[in-house]
């Protein structure tokens, strides 16, 4: 049996990074995710795998270090929480515009502004619709456990390199701070220079050799027609991601007449809401989007005909609900329950709100 270790979600990010052959981490402290860099600094991976770990002077700098490392075909990442991610959005737009692979972890806290350090899902719009300027998309993974935090690091890098696009793990303060057993995966070695050359020589800045043209990484196109052609190519890539990479899980949806949709820590809490409803003979099911982009549109769409209502449960004022309403398109009422500012509801509280919506 694989080894299981008790750790925080944030620590799981750090251990997974070392374990999956990450080349570099660049970050700036912010609660509730500082344990990521603290764990890396304690583990000193530069002495074992050769992974670079650097505390930058700001999130602006962290994300641009990630940009530089990504230009070199390296597996590079950063982590932060909401205010820091806002600062990074310029850089993330550049990464998307330059088609660079990287991993960003957002352990969300309450906002807007400096907000609270308690958990939130208030950055759903920012992360799934872009965040920075221009028409771009992030690949977004929503962990619901410390194990997910661990597993999504490797998965995030795989997807980021497959599509040469930023991947974001959109966690929250609950998942980051909660301690759970995490099953460790077999270690992957960091890629050698030869492997990087084989994989990335067509675009990465690893030194112009006589056998190829110089590589330039840029997101600049002065002519409108060139930029439009590039944007259309990006949209094709996003369509491909939507076709291939949707991930979600369901709980008691086979006979469900009502559906809760919830992601991250809220999906865990909502499993208990399903149980509370079932005890009273109400056929409630749960759908948990694991990827927030691409969104499990087809899965929700397929359930709509059997449903009398859908409720989106989120730690915000109602953001994901807009996507569900687009899918439902008026066929079934889509209700909402949410808490904000760092408040986390209990299953009973959500159940009470749910009952009101169906009466």
């Amino acid at each position: 049996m694989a080894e299981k270790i008790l750790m925080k979600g944030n620590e799981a990010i750090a251990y997974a990074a070392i374990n999956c052959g990450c080349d570099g981490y660049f970050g700036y402290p912010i609660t509730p995710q500082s344990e990521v860099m603290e764990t890396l600094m304690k583990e000193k991976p530069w002495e074992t795998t050769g992974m670079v770990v650097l505390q930058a002077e700001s999130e602006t700098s962290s994300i641009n270090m990630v940009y530089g490392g990504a230009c070199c075909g390296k597996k590079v990442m950063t982590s932060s929480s909401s205010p820091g991610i806002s600062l990074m959005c310029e850089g993330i737009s550049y990464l998307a515009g330059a088609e660079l692979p990287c991993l960003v972890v957002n352990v969300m806290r309450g906002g807007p502004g400096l907000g609270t350090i308690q958990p939130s899902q208030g950055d759903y719009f920012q992360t799934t619709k872009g965040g920075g300027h221009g028409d771009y998309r992030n690949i977004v993974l929503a962990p619901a456990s410390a194990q997910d935090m661990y597993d999504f690091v490797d998965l995030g890098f795989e997807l980021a390199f497959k599509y040469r696009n930023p991947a974001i793990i959109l966690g929250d303060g609950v998942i980051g701070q909660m301690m759970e057993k995490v099953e460790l995966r077999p270690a992957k070695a960091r890629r050698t220079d030869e492997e990087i050359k084989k994989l990335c020589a067509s675009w990465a800045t690893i030194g112009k050799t006589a056998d190829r043209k110089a590589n330039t990484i840029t997101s600049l196109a002065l002519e409108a027609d060139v930029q439009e052609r590039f944007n259309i190519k990006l949209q094709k890539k996003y369509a491909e991601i939507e076709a291939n990479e949707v991930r979600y899980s369901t709980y008691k949806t086979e006979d469900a007449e009502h559906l809760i949709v919830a992601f991250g820590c809220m999906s865990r809490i909502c499993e208990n809401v399903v149980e509370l409803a079932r005890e009273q003979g109400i056929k409630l099911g749960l759908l948990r989007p694991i990827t927030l982009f691409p969104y499990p549109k087809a899965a929700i769409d397929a359930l709509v005909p059997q449903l009398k209502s859908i409720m989106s449960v989120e730690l915000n004022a109602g953001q994901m609900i807009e996507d569900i309403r687009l899918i439902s398109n008026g066929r079934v009422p889509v209700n909402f329950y949410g808490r904000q500012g760092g408040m986390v509801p209990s299953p009973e509280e959500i159940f009470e709100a749910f009952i009101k919506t169906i009466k």
Partner: protein
Amino acid sequence: MDIKDIIKPENKVYGKTPLLKDAILHYCPGCSHGTVHKIIAEIIEEMGIQDRTIGISPVGCSVFAYNYLDIDWQQAAHGRAPALATATKRLMPDKYVFTYQGDGDLASIGTAEIMHACNRGENIVVIFINNAIYGMTGGQMAPTTLLGQVTATTPYGRQADLNGYPLKITELIAQLEGTCYVTRQSVQNPAAVRKTKKAIRKAFENSMMKKGTSFVEVVSTCNSGWKIPPVQANKWMEENMFPFYPLGDMKDR
């Protein structure tokens, strides 16, 4: 004598380095950017490090530096080149990594990045083109714009009480423990070009010796932004910029 009798290999005194591509420069005639590009290209050729050099271009008139030098390039967001260079050098320590930045890029929007990269002593080369103006956006005030200097956003001349003082960022950089070589040069005549070439070559060599950051400022002209012809621009630079930004090494260790 016919021209054909003159163009012979044995008569050749100068050739364009193949590191400079044949692309037509987009710089205004008389602009210092082109001269500094040529210097860097020659150094990369002479050191034989084309396959080991990564350039990082800024946002500013030199954003397109990648069209001219035949090496791998990264194009950074405005001011962030030192952050890209930091990661690139740390992840590929066997590479020569340099940033090429204007005064707006380096000394205004990117002040934090350059200060901290230099303070960490990243083993990179920084080429700083100080033309005391925002060339690319049409000649607005730069952090290095002189007092009294007229720009698009200081139409009555830069005033300290309104606009603050010109920033001697290179003097600040020289104070930082992380820098090993900090110098200020210019390229307005052949002698100055030779000195600048020597300085940039030293900076490139330093970057493989784990001595820290090498920083080369080139006091430059922007005749379009200054709205004076090239020859006059050189004169204006000598008379107005050199007294405030004196040339020479500030630090060499």
